[in-house]
C-alpha cells in the first residue's frame, strides 16, 4: 500500500465523540415520533375534556348548594364545589404538560430526522426526557403519599387500641 497524500477523510475517532444514528434507527425514531405526536394530540383532547368537567363541576355546585335545605348548606356546598376543583385542576395541568412534552418530541423528531438536523433532534430528546421525568415524578409523589397515608392510617388505627 503506497502512502498517499489524501485530504483527511472524515474518519470518526475511536471511541466516537458523537453517537451516530443509522438509517434504520432513523426510521424507528420517525415512527416513534408519529405515534408520539398522535398520543400528544389525544392527550390535549383529554385535557380539554377535563377542563370541561372542571367548568361543569364549578358551575353546578353553587346550584346544588342552593337546593340544600340545611341552614348552612349554601356556603358549605359552594366551598366544597370549589375545593373539589383543585385536584381536578392539578390533574389537568399535569396531564397537559405530559401530553405537551410528548407532542413536542413527536413533531421535532419527525422534522429533525427528515433533514438530519441535530438541533431539532436535541430539542426533541429534551422534550422526551421531560416527558418521562414528569411521569416518573408524578408516580413517585403518588407512591409516597400512599405510603404516608398508609402509615398515618395505621398509627391512627393503632392508637385506638391504646386507650384504656
Amino acid at each position, binding site marked *: 500500500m503506497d502512502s*498517499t497524500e489524501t485530504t483527511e477523510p472524515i474518519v470518526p475517532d475511536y471511541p466516537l465523540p458523537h453517537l451516530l*444514528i443509522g438509517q434504520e434507527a432513523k426510521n*424507528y425514531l420517525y*415512527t416513534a415520533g408519529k405515534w408520539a405526536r398522535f398520543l400528544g394530540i389525544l392527550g390535549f383532547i383529554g385535557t380539554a375534556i377535563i377542563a370541561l368537567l372542571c367548568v361543569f363541576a364549578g358551575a353546578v355546585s353553587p346550584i346544588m348548594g342552593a337546593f340544600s335545605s340545611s341552614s348552612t348548606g349554601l356556603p358549605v356546598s359552594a366551598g366544597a364545589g370549589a375545593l373539589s376543583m383543585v385536584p381536578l385542576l392539578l390533574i389537568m395541568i399535569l396531564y397537559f404538560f405530559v401530553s405537551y412534552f410528548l407532542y413536542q418530541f413527536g413533531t421535532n423528531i419527525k422534522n429533525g430526522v427528515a433533514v438530519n438536523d441535530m438541533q431539532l433532534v*436535541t430539542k426533541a430528546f429534551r422534550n422526551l*426526557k421531560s416527558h418521562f*421525568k414528569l*411521569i416518573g415524578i408524578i408516580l413517585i409523589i403518588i407512591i409516597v403519599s400512599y405510603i404516608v397515608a398508609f402509615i398515618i392510617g395505621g398509627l391512627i388505627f393503632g392508637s385506638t387500641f391504646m386507650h384504656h
Partner: protein
Amino acid sequence: MDTTETTDPIVPDYPLPSLVIGEEGKYYLHTAGRWATFLGIFGFVITGLTLLEAIFIGSLFSLMGRLNPAMNMPTTPGGPAASSIMSAFSGVISFVCVLAAVFYFFLSYYLYKFGTGIKKSTTFNDSVTANKSLEYLKSHFKLIGITTIVIISFYLLIFIGAILVGVFAASALHQ
C-alpha cells in the same frame, strides 16, 4: 493524488445518511433512558399486582357474599342474589384484568429495554445498541397508540350500538 488501495474509511456521504447526536442530545437521551427504566420497573410491579387481582377477585367476591348476609338477598324478588351477580361479574373482571396485565407488561418491557439500551449506547457511543433501543421505543409508542385506538373504537361501537338498540326498541313499541 495517487490511487490507493485502502480499506474504505468510514467517510460519511453528503448529505449525511446518519444522524449525529452531540453531547447535549446524548445527555438528554441518557436521562430519558434512566427515567424510562424506572417507569419500566414500576410497570412490571403494576403488572404483577394486576395479575394478582385477576386471580383473587373471584374469591374476594364470593368471600364478601358469604360474610355479608345482606349480599345474599335477592336484588329483585325471585331474581338472582346480589352476590351471585357479583361472582358472574368477577369472571369478566378477571378476563379484563388479564388483558390489561398483558398490555401493561409489554408496555413496560419495551420501555425498560429502551431505557437500559439507550443508557448503554449513549455511554459508549454504540450505534448498534442505540438502533435496537430505538426500535423498542417505537414499539412502546406504537402499542400505546394502537391500544388507545382499539379502546376508543370499542367505546364508539358500544355507544352507537346502544343508540341503535334504543331507536329499535322505541320503534318496536310504537307498532
